[in-house]
């Protein structure tokens, strides 16, 4: 390939890249315009955190965890006591990242009211003809960090710098036994979404420094 050919090729590549970027930006902009949230400009900022504290164990490393960054990077940690122990990563593109956050937001994660959920669970327990309990359940911890967020409904104001943290013991049991509590149903769906990140088939080991 001559120098001219290489120059032409580079120009074509650049034009192609520019077009792709423009299309992607438009798509992202369109999605952002529809979304009730926005992510910050720092690509290394953590947007989503998920940890499952495995029930019934004593360990300083309590269970599998996930971090999702604003640039779409997913970082998964599996403790030493588990099969497949190690650190893994994969990459979401912008639309995939926004789709993930959108599902969490639309699943009412930011609006989750732990006190209300516990009150509703208590009422469900009191009204149930059957006693139910589980032992040594896991505790899930979810954190969602958004640059901006607007709640549903007319007149809702946009909030900036929203961080939502949720912790729940025995979620699988509670969601299964008290389906009449909508908060638990929503939270369980979000938990399943985040747990699926740990089991993605495209995870690859994080390269050692």
């Amino acid at each position, binding site marked *: 390939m001559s120098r001219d050919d290489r120059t032409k090729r580079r120009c074509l590549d650049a034009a192609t890249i520019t077009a792709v970027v423009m299309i992607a930006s438009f798509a992202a902009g369109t999605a952002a315009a529809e979304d009730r949230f926005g992510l910050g400009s720092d690509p290394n900022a953590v947007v989503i955190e998920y940890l499952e504290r495995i*029930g019934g164990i004593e360990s300083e490393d309590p269970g599998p965890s996930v971090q999702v960054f604003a640039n779409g990077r997913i970082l998964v940690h599996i403790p030493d006591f588990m099969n497949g122990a190690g650190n893994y990563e994969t990459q979401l593109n912008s639309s995939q990242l926004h789709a993930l956050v959108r599902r969490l937001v639309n699943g009412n994660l930011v609006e989750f009211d732990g006190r209300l959920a516990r009150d509703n669970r208590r009422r469900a327990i009191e009204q149930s003809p059957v006693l*139910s309990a589980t032992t040594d359940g896991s505790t899930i911890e979810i954190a969602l960090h958004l640059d901006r967020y607007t709640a549903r409904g007319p007149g809702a104001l946009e909030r900036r710098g929203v961080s939502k943290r949720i912790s729940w013991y025995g979620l699988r049991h509670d969601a299964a036994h008290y389906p009449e509590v909508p908060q638990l149903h929503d939270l369980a769906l979000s938990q399943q979404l985040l747990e699926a990140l740990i089991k993605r088939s495209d995870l690859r080991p994080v390269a050692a420094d």
Partner: protein
Amino acid sequence: MKLRTTLSIPFLLALMAPATALAGGYMFAIETGFTDVVTHPSGYVGSGGTLTVTVCIDPTSANASDMVIPTQNVIRTWNAQVSTTGNVVSPAPDFPSTRYDYESMLLHDIGHCQGVSHPALGSESELGSPDVDYTRSTDGGDGYDLDPGSDMLIATPDDVRGNDVNLNWFRIGINNPFLTSLPAFLDASNFSQSLAHLPGVDNYAAGGSDVVAGHFGFSDTEAVMHQGQSVGEAQRTLTADDLGMIRYAESGLDESDGSGDDYDLVLSYAGLTASCDIVIDSTSSGSIGSCSLLGAFVGNDHHVRITSADLTYNSVGPSWYFNQLSNEVIEPGPFVASVPSLRPFGFAAAGLVLAVAGSLALQNRHGSN
């Protein structure tokens, strides 16, 4: 009611420590709102006699064949009702330090499936470590009051717990979960959860952790029902703290020994089937081991019978060790006095103790029969 006579076996007597203590709690005490609830195993309807609870392995469970021997071991261990000290072996000599011991997990969770709770608040309190180790209680309606007292040790008798309602049962006048004099029976006359029945100087019921055991002078000892299994650790024999709740429940709905509603609980292995009282199966996520229980009131609002018990363990996440060494065939045995530390003898001694206990001529668990 079974009549049991006692044989004199000098060797066993030599192994026996002078005494046994008892404490612990019941499942459903929080869920029902009745802090003094007593939970009975599957099948108890208020009538006396032998209560057989079957345990089986779902044949579709992962590692089903590897689970047979440790499951049978656990059944023998609960049936023998031998209380031990020095029951925490870490690192365990028979498996890699990177694995969890299935038999130890199962010993704990079969306890739950019989109705016994953690003696501590546990992770279900949604507290963090080390607060989860405080003695099991309610939060008094205004959040837990957690003060370890002057010794700065959690769950020891000098803890100051404010209005938290104690859920741990203990021998009246005796607040040492690991060693006291052996009672001929346990019922409301000598077993309580009322703080008014503590020794005069004590503030609160003691828990079952290794810290509490150390406080009372027992090393490498922890109640099996205390939450928290460590990797590379084996805990295959019970402590007195684990046994008290079974013994007390056996005093029946009237919580009085020697009456017609007393029962003797016997676990029985039902094989590879999904049809039994306590079904063991694997899952692919969640806690390392868990028992999901359903229950119904029996007799009155202070007694619950388990109606369903499903025991699951996470076969995918943790790396497991399945002990394939039988702890010997024994019959359901008596509640015998504490056996001193097994640590110098390892698991062989534990099996021997269980075997001897099981082959003892059987004494009546209930005093008046």
